């Protein structure tokens, strides 16, 4: 199973090149929230994207283009980049498997606000209903580039993007489709921001994953898209291969709706299943892109799971959480972090978390804190979500 296209947009910027430079340097992209009022919230920062005014040429009408909101724009930009790189043509059916937690929720908020405040005013309400739904940005993507394939939306909270890629991987591997466009997207919105703030999960300062003094996560937004296909299909087109996906594991943590089991049993099960599927032992993994949200509980649980999973290898195993740079992208996180793994495999470097000052002593592994070149042949990416959705993906360098 090979990856022949990757597109990404985060607060670091638009596209592979800009993001690779940012991740390699450990750049952070946090700033005060401007999209909605956070004056009465505990946290006031996020990794917002400055969306470009220009979009690639599409088949969308002017009316539809005007109605594009943040999530749809991000998805469109990331998908276009991946699509262009893959060299695919739209004639064949193209299954899409995407992950998101809230789609275009800001429109849902607008709908409710108007319904409550001016109940007799129905102006634009139907449009809001139509466009806020999670499938809407993906259907717009179909129209934009004439994609015809079936669309599957997985909403497993913060593991959505990883589960989407995992399902796409299984779809191609089992022969149910020769190619799949997959990834995740999520835009910042007030409901989600206030939700995480209500749980006191948001840090008032930029997040510091795996730091002993960590004090919560920082939200971000973005989209990342991959084109997966069989090796035979890629070779037939003489396509450039960015890397391979070779393992996917998923498990459910039943401990609590928002808190992981302290021992990280499901995280361990997901990593083990992904490696078993890939036919690898932990000793063969060169880098782990951790879920690493920077909440005290998540990082403690994940540390415990990685320590157990890696065993003796842990002492020399490089681990980082790139949420230190772009925040937590929720439904897009697993997809963006998959692209980061591909970047590391392609560029032979490790993405540092430069905000880390005092490594949590519970981490028996090597936390990547400085930009560094390294031999990276195998990378594993973890994504864990509310509700206990745990997913791990394994990627291999293409030589």
């Amino acid at each position, binding site marked *: 199973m090979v990856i022949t296209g990757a597109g990404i947009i985060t607060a670091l910027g638009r596209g592979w090149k800009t993001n690779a430079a940012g991740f390699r340097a450990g750049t952070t992209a946090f700033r005060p929230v401007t999209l909605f009022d956070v004056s009465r919230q505990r946290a006031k920062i996020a990794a917002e994207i400055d969306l470009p005014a220009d979009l690639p040429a599409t088949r969308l009408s002017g009316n539809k283009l005007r109605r594009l909101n943040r999530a749809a724009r991000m998805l469109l930009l990331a998908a276009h980049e991946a699509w262009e790189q893959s060299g695919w043509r739209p004639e064949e059916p193209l299954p899409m498997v995407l992950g998101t937690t809230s789609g275009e929720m800001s429109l849902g908020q607008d709908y409710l606000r108007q319904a409550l405040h001016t109940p007799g005013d129905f102006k634009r309400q139907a449009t809001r209903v139509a466009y806020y739904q999670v499938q809407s940005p993906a259907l717009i993507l179909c129209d934009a580039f004439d994609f015809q394939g079936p669309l599957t939306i997985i909403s497993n909270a913060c593991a959505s993007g990883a589960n989407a890629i995992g399902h796409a991987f299984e779809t191609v591997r089992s022969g149910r489709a020769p190619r799949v466009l997959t990834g995740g997207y999520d835009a910042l919105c007030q*409901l989600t921001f206030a939700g995480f703030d209500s749980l*006191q999960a948001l840090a008032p300062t930029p997040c510091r994953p795996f730091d002993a003094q960590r004090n919560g996560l920082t939200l971000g937004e973005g989209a990342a898209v991959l084109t997966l296909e069989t090796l035979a299909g890629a070779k037939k087109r003489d396509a450039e291969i960015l890397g391979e996906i070779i393992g996917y594991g998923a498990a459910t943590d*039943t401990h609590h709706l928002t808190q992981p089991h302290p021992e990280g049993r499901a995280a361990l099960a997901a990593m083990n299943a992904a490696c078993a599927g890939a036919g690898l032992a932990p000793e063969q993994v060169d880098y782990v892109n951790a879920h690493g949200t920077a909440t005290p509980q998540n990082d403690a649980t994940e540390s415990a799971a990685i320590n157990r999973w890696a065993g003796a290898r842990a002492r020399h195993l490089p681990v980082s959480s790139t949420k230190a740079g772009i925040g937590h992208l929720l439904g897009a996180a697993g997809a963006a972090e998959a692209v980061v793994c591909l970047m590391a495999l392609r560029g032979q470097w490790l993405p540092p978390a430069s905000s880390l000052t005092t490594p949590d002593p519970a981490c028996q592994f090597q936390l990547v804190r400085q930009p560094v070149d390294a031999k990276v042949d195998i990378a594993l990416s973890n994504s864990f979500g509310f509700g206990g959705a745990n997913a791990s993906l394994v990627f291999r360098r293409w030589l």
Partner: protein
Amino acid sequence: MSAVFIHGLGAVSPAGWGVAALLGALEKNQPLPVETLTRPGWEKKLSVRSVPPPLSRLDFLSHPRLRRAGTLSQHTLAAALEALGTDAAPVQAGALRLGVIVCTMAGSVAYSRRFYEEVLQEPATASPLIFPETVFNAPASHLAAYLNSPAINATLVGDEGAFLQGLAMAAGWLDEDRADGCVVVGAEELDWIIADAVRLFRRSAVYTGGAGALYMKKQSSARTVLSAVTDSFSFTKSQNRTTAARKVRGQLGEGRADELLCDSETDRSVWLDWPGRRLSPKTIVGDSFAALSAWQCVIACDEIRKQHCSCASVSVVGSNQQAIGARFVSPESSDL
């Protein structure tokens, strides 16, 4: 797709809690009574059908996870547990790996509305107890927690067709040996905000909540087999609803005189020449996105189980995303 047995069925609907109540309503062939729901600040009432209270207290509500769980989760659990039947015990004992797939379109709208209303009033004091319940996968998580099931779990969000996509995903998991059995639930809940939104698109719609569930296994003595799920045909600029529905028809086949069609009352023109019997639960119970398509499948399977027909096709032409179909047969069917 390999054939998969439908080992159990479950339903919660405005007809009551359980498959029997749903089937009873269908048998009477009379639309269930319509009630009205108040939309704050608006003098007109919304026409809806609500799920009646359960006849006895739901046992699962005593589980610590479910004390705050909303209606959507309650519907999900009730339908799933009915479908699982005695297999719930081996799942809880860790002897059976159960894949969980919950499909929904609107999700937990009641809690989402309530939480955002709190945010609008005072974001600094919005309830941390409500927010986690707004997440789409809360019902799937609660179900897995109640069953103590650590196996793979997914929530699919989309229009009515998502439930049939869930069936195909479950069949894939069983093929890949990710689970020994899979329960697929289509669930929705009733709230004024969603009934109001539906009314903007379909004036005559009578919205309701509920859930339907199919429990699938590779090996079973069950009388029903899922033999096929068609491709999902998305509604796009170059493929409208009717074209998509025709493609589903093309994959399901012409139909036979002894074949039931359980449809969604949309794009009926595509099915005008269907040679067999037809059932449309929507006319009896109302509109309910993923729950409705789940009820269609429950009814189709039950008809085969009771040997009222040897095979049944389900056609779903969704609200805004896709047309998709499924075919169920008896294990003795030559179509397998």
